[in-house]
């Protein structure tokens, strides 16, 4: 295997780990706070479960797709 492919995979892998780290925070860490997200003026727990996390996931996926495209192009491994 050429080093170009190895480098491409190393970068792909670190991007994926970054995505998974952000994903874990939005999915689990935040919601572990539960009632702690609520304040008298705003239903934070309801907001995060019903809206915040979901929007963050969508942004995360689009961000991932564009970053991955850049990595593919950097090594000339994108689809022609």
């Amino acid at each position, binding site marked *: *295997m050429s080093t170009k*492919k190895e480098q*491409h*995979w190393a970068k*792909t892998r670190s991007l*994926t780990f970054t*995505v*998974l780290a952000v*994903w874990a925070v*939005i*999915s*689990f860490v935040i*919601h*572990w706070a*539960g*009632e*702690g*997200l*609520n304040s008298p003026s*705003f*239903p934070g*727990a*309801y*907001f995060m*479960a*019903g*809206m915040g*996390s*979901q*929007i963050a*996931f*969508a942004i*995360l*996926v*689009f961000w*991932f*797709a564009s970053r*991955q*495209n850049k990595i*593919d192009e950097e090594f*000339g*491994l*994108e*689809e*022609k």
Partner: protein
Amino acid sequence: MIRLEGGFVANLGKVYGLYTLGFLGFVILMGILEAAGVENTIIGWMFVAFTVLIYALIGVLSRTMESDQYYVAGREVPAVYNGMATAADWMSGASFIAMAGGIYLKGYPYMAFLVGWTGGYVLVASLIAPYLRKFGAYTVPDFIGTRYGGNLARFCAVLILVVASFTYVTAQINGTGTVAARALQIPFEVGVWIGLAGILFCSMLGGMRAVTWTQVAQYIVLIVAYLIPVFWMSNTLGYGLIPHFAQFEAVGRVQELEALLGVGTLLPTAEAQAEAGKLAALTVGINDASESFMEKWKFFTLVLCMMAGTASLPHVLMRYFTTDSVRNARKSVGWSLLFICGLYLTAPALATFTKLSLLDPNVATSIIGKSVSEVTNLEWIQQWSNVGFLKVVDGNGDGIVQINEFFMRGDIVVLATPEMAGLPYVISGLVAAGGLAAAMSTADGLLLAIANALSHDLYYKIIDPKADTKTRLIVARILLILIGAAGAFVASLKLTSILGAVAWAFCFANSGLFFPLVLGVWWKRANRAGAIAGMVGGFGAGAWYLYMVQFAGMTPWIGIDGLRFGMIGMPVSLILMIVVSLMTEAPDAETQKMVDEIRIPSGKVVTNA
């Protein structure tokens, strides 16, 4: 539409734009007919007949005898439309009919489903879908079979796929039956078979190609049907134009009312609950978030199981086989998530506004605190009590409806909202059409996933590798009918509620398939013995645990109940797969090279079945 057939994919915007306008025009026409005095039943029939006919028409127009078209829609579906089709494929009867009701009755803990069923797509995008697209498989077991080699691995994957998807599809056919029975005023058992006929029309002649284009049409119907009542309620209740922003203020008001009316403190008496049977009174507040370790743990485990299930359910993964490139497979996951959010962001708002309509004494439609005779005389209360969806039991005999005396099935939050909030019947017809679209589109995807796995992987790859394309596609269609009929038969037995069966499907899939799929791409050392051990062990452990908890009366370990049995199956699968892989020989050089090929977007697909 027929004229456009040649350049159909190039004209998608025009076709679906016209279709959407046509559908809105149809809704308005129905509104006019209602105002002119046409009976409700006829309007209900028209909604169901019109939409199902359109889907069937698309299904027939998309008929094909080419295997590439039949299995992967010719791999030419643009990212946005594939996202829309995935959203319809994904959002089942459970999402459409049961989600808002679940939030209404069970409050914050139930919202774990929302988080799990959206966050799973991050795993789909980053770990699995683009690589499977590059691989070029027709089905998910096709990937497992080729990556690990050997018929046994392929067979295990087929078996898990069939169990998971079949569990899921019975719930969907059940959903079509429920909606059809309500809208058409026919018995549930008949509704189930009518629903099945519609589903088969959409998928049989054109396979994945037909299902793709009907699912796009179904998404449009279901999202319109879901959004209109919520917007209407938010505005008539005076909370604001956009329910998604207005809901937070409404939550504050609901919480005031919940405290006032005794939600969570005023529980139904044992006699009243016995009389109400399976119906439930409201005992959980809308925003009682987790406080104890156990509550947090249960939220966490449910989110995790639903996410891993999302990333291993074959009917979802196979949607990404149809995009025209790896690049677009990734982007398409983002679009799927956006289209799914269209409904999932609305469900909590619907639950909240429904609570306001029923609980707030300042709102004309409220029923809590009114006299029993007044409430039981309401037309919608009578209608839905007649079909066993709700019941008023005056537990303390004071003649006033308290919060612990009003029992309901969660499903009516969506199905009865229009009537509850006093909207015209045309909105009820629209909601019925939406629920039907949601259940049918998911059933289509599932039936196709099962039939394709059996025809491609079991029949063609294992039993008769010399079969020609025509025979294979005929076998695929016969299987589709047989599996559909079996699904309808099981659904007519009404074994579990819609949601129970759905959560089981996710756990079956993640117990058996999640790690073999992910490690197949991400760990070159994973080999056949490890994958088989992971599939059999994980699936076996999960299934055993479900049986023990659900049917043999075992006390769940640390809160891991029947909805979460993936928490048992997944670790077993992971550990077995790693240990057995390391104890046996590494995969050969050819397999390793194949994995390298999967990891880069450029170049040809790895397999071409």
